[in-house]
């Protein structure tokens, strides 16, 4: 799938642009969405980099397996999905202000899980 290699580089560039744009908009201010976006962008760059390294035979099979599965899937992809799901959860909680605390914790565990 050679065309998909191009997407890996495109993903890195787009994520870098998003990071810069996020910094221009928010500066040094702390905002939940900003933090989640930055995490998602950084992990996307990492994931794309690992995919390129693993699939272009720059590493041996064992190294690329560990890198792709443990670091790529286990850390970067997981963090990315966490940030996405947490954003959905936060939006839902903001709308449902009378959500009971127990249900709130349960929903957070469910979403992050």
């Amino acid at each position: 799938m050679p065309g998909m290699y191009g997407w890996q580089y495109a993903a890195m560039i787009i994520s870098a642009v998003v990071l810069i744009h996020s910094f221009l908009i928010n500066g040094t201010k702390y905002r939940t969405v900003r933090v989640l976006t930055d995490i998602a962008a950084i992990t996307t760059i990492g994931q794309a980099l690992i995919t390129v390294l693993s699939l272009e035979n720059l590493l041996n099979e064992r190294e690329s397996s560990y890198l792709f599965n443990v670091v790529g899937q286990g850390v970067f992809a997981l963090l990315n999905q966490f940030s996405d799901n947490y954003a959905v959860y936060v939006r839902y909680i903001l709308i449902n202000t009378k959500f009971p605390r127990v249900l709130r914790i349960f929903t957070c565990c469910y979403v992050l899980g």
Partner: protein
Amino acid sequence: MLLRFGLMFATWWPLDTIVPWFVNLNDPSRTNDLKAMTIVWYYSYMVYDCLFTILLLYSLFNLQYRSTLSSSSQGHGLYIIAFKAICHNIFSLGGLYAGYNYTYFGYTLQNLSTVFSLHLINWKFEKYFTAKHWSSTSTKMNMYRSSGGPATSTTTIKIKVKPLPVDRARENNNSSSVIREMNEHSRAEQQLNSSNKEAALNALSKMED
């Protein structure tokens, strides 16, 4: 059906986490099991996405139609949230489709869709439209004052002295928050007596229309 798929998601991730403790999924004979788990993951995640969006839209519907504080601008804000939630869902589903169909490469696209949905959709692009809305309403307000409505001259001056904080109004896009913002300013609060306040509130409620 929805509940069934929701439960499917609820059972999927513990399954996906715990099964490898007992079964060696790297065994070539387990290829079919892995494929089955991927299919479960794909459909259940898709339904999970839709489930949360539907719940969100349902809550928004309740807020808009059952709240006593509902107004046009509040409804406008809720529509924006609904629109963003639906867009977020579409992006997530697109990324999910890529992740499912393109092994290895697709994960990056899935991550990229998350970046897009988090950054572009949560970006407050609506503030430009809201600013336009407020400027048109303030024009109406000026016309209303000059024609001599129920708002007294004193009230008019107070509102002029303390113009509505447009930036904050953009963020808190409903009438109650605007009133709250006004109340925070003690100087204006002291100058307004109760009847003037009522007139100001009436004027604000007209601005919302």
